């Protein structure tokens, strides 16, 4: 019979203790197991912030549980405030977790293929419920993580917390900084927009510059997955972004965290004797226990920060998306992500092997070995004048280099193109594409007459255009004019053409009267000379009556032999309009005895775009 007897321990307990007590004991048992050491009474005492008993049961989860063994059981009161940590290390960890979670969500709708990646982005932005929010949060978190990690490193440097015995902790931190930067950078390629393609092309070309040549070539091929970035390259960057770099980050983070707990949080520089490290010897009365003080506070931080990120992404921060990647066009004003602008600035300085490979590698190495270079035992600010000055110089240098990396340094193109790019930039939607569609009335508008524009939007756009035209004006570009033409192209589609016109003066000065270019019919007197000073005349003076002049420009073709002018000697020419002589210039293009006299040419630069009624640019930036 006993063969069929089922032994249920709880029944025995109920038999022995009665139902109520047995169940209560069981519940207590379960809670103790889940919390790795805290009974229900202990948990309640934590929540009520009662003083802990002796021995302190709240230390048990740190010793026995996996999650809390990574957290110190108590902190020194001096590192519990905002200073000296500013919670930056904690924030870095928070953002790392935040990025993993939002990233995994995005992976559900993303395929790393040039054929569909951009389409996936549009789908995430417009079709997937909360897709846009998720992308914005992922991007916002990434940017903030870079800031927070960099500030964390700066703070550690300033307080000298990387000094003995924490040198190795600092080294793992440098690796984490690298992982953060490259995680962020590798994520840039994934949307497969213009920014992606060209930022990564530059990055891979820098790798290619690594000496010796065989190493550079191999590195480049490994990164790009072929001679050009294409399907293989995108897949490789995707794998780096979602597997290799996060894995490296997690490993480095584990070591980093372990070392932090092992050595304790370094105290503020002034409170210890020079060369001493008392972080591990915290007097009883100065301890702040993880449970409950720090634990509840961190839970509060997580919820508040997450709420903040959700709200900011929902209302204000929107991750930009540039036009689809085009391997045939590098957009004007292409820049590296802001945290690599310093590198772009350095690359403008000269040789790519020096500035793109050797110097960045040396700087990385320097950063890694800082604790072994600045070996002075004191962490006090007053004793570290050299170290802190070097740090300040480095920050200043980075700021200057970052400015040099921006489009405003050494890459500005001709002012006519810059003027159009101000309204119609190639790297972001810009004012024209973001303008309300309905307010772009059909017609042709002069930038100068922005005040007469029919709608406020047009007036605003034309005013920007007019401001830029002032920059076009110069000795080589006279009478700059800007025209915006808006046409009804198709149902729901407007064609917008931006034209910049200017006069390029020829060798004969432009005809002006009272500051204004001459327009209308005038009489010209032409005289040819054989010398550059226009003193020895050749042949008779030619009078041309009623030459049409448009905005100071004229163009006359003269048959030299018909006018009785010896062709070989007529090397220079002077022209007079009425009383005003236009100077002496070499005889321009000659063809079979004909001289073409021009005092300038009207030049033009124009760009066209098409705006669709339902394009969601308006919400895109």
């Amino acid at each position: 019979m006993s063969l069929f007897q089922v032994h249920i321990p709880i029944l025995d307990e109920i038999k022995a203790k009665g139902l109520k007590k047995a169940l209560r004991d069981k519940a207590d048992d379960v809670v103790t197991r889940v919390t790795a050491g805290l009974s229900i009474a202990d948990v309640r005492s934590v929540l009520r912030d009662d003083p802990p008993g002796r021995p302190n049961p709240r230390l048990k989860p740190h010793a026995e549980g996996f999650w809390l063994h990574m957290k110190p059981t108590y902190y020194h009161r001096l590192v519990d405030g905002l200073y000296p940590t500013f919670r930056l290390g904690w924030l870095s960890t928070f953002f790392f977790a935040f990025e993993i979670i939002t990233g995994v969500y995005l992976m559900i709708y993303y395929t790393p293929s040039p054929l569909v990646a951009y389409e996936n982005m549009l789908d995430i932005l417009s079709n997937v419920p909360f897709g846009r929010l998720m992308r914005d949060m992922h991007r916002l978190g990434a940017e903030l993580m870079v800031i927070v990690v960099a500030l964390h490193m700066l703070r550690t440097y300033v307080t000298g917390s990387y000094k003995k015995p924490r040198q190795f902790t600092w080294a793992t931190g440098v690796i984490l900084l690298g992982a953060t930067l490259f995680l962020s950078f590798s994520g840039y390629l994934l949307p497969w927009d213009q920014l992606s393609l060209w930022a990564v092309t530059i990055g891979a070309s820098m790798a290619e510059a690594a000496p010796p040549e065989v190493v550079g070539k191999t590195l480049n091929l490994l990164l790009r997955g072929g001679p050009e970035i294409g399907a293989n390259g995108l897949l490789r960057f995707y794998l780096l972004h979602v597997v290799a770099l996060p894995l490296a980050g997690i490993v480095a983070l584990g070591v980093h965290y372990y070392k932090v707990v092992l050595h304790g949080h370094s105290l503020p520089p002034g409170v210890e004797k020079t060369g001493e490290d008392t972080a591990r010897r915290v007097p009883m009365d100065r301890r702040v226990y993880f449970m409950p003080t720090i634990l509840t506070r961190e839970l509060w931080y997580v919820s508040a920060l997450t709420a903040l990120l959700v709200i900011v992404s929902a209302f204000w921060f929107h991750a930009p998306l540039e036009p689809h990647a085009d391997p045939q066009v590098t957009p004007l004003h292409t820049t590296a992500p802001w945290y690599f602008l310093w590198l772009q600035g350095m690359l403008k300085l000269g040789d790519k092997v020096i500035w793109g490979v050797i110097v960045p590698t040396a700087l990385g190495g320097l950063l890694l070995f800082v604790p072994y270079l600045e070996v002075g035992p004191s962490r006090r600010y007053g004793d570290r004048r050299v170290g802190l000055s070097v740090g300040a110089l480095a920050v200043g240098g980075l700021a200057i280099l970052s400015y040099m990396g921006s489009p405003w340094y050494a890459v500005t193109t001709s002012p006519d193109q810059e003027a159009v790019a101000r309204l119609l930039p190639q790297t972001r939607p810009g004012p024209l594409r973001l303008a309300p569609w309905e307010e772009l009335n059909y017609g042709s508008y002069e930038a100068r007459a922005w005040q007469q524009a029919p709608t406020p939007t047009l007036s605003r756009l034309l005013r920007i255009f007019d401001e830029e035209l002032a920059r076009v004006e110069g000795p080589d570009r006279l009478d700059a004019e800007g025209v915006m033409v808006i046409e009804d192209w198709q149902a729901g589609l407007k064609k917008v053409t931006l034209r910049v016109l200017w006069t390029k003066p020829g060798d004969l000065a432009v005809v002006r009267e009272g500051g204004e270019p001459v327009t209308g019919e005038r009489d010209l007197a032409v005289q040819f000379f054989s010398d550059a000073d226009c003193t020895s005349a050749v042949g008779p003076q030619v009078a041309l009556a009623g030459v049409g002049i448009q905005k100071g420009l004229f163009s006359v073709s003269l048959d030299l032999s018909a006018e009785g002018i010896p062709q070989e000697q007529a090397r220079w020419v002077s022209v007079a309009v009425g009383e005003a002589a236009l100077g002496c210039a070499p005889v321009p293009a000659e063809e079979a005895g004909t001289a073409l006299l021009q005092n300038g040419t009207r030049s033009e630069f124009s760009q066209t775009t098409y705006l669709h009624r339902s394009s969601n640019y308006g919400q895109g930036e």
Partner: protein
Amino acid sequence: MTEAVADAPAEALASPPLSRREFLYYLWGGSMAVFLAGSGGVTLWFALPRFREGEFGGVFHLSVEEVPPPDSSPREFAAGRFWLINIGGRTMEDPRQPKDYPLQPGIRALFKVCTHLGCLYKWVPTNDRFECPCHGSKFLKAGARIDGPARRNLDTFMVEAVDAEGRVLARTEPSMDSQEGSPLDLPPGAVTLRVDTGRRILGAPNSKPGGGR
């Protein structure tokens, strides 16, 4: 061994002799290191992309009518990733041309990619030069670098002039003084140009401010 240590505790501080077991462990460790190095090499080999050398470098056939007239703006051939330029008298007299790279008249096919870091430079007519939007390298129409971080002139492709019967009348020849290919002087009778994008001729070194060797 243990007995020997027990007998002479003073000597325990000195390092004990290499035992067979310890030696074999070192041997094993060494072989693991060799194995890992080999695996690393194989991983690199595995990850190296496979493609045909010069995959994009096809041969492009153009009619001579497509060649821009001398001294006119360069003409873009997007499919072949090159600009066709025609050096004439005015281009040769350009005062910005660095003296280290004397010009000859003729046709050149310039590879569209900047010699700095792989962006595509573009023709800016107002400034009468090529400009790279990424780091601001500037090149003259004939391909000489005059400004910016690029460290060599623009790369060119081999161009051949072919007549109606398919005979090659002239081709880009290496010119020893500048290391660059000579411009192709279009011979009479030529009907087709062949641009071989698989045969890229690297631009000559050029690193001085304003251009120069």
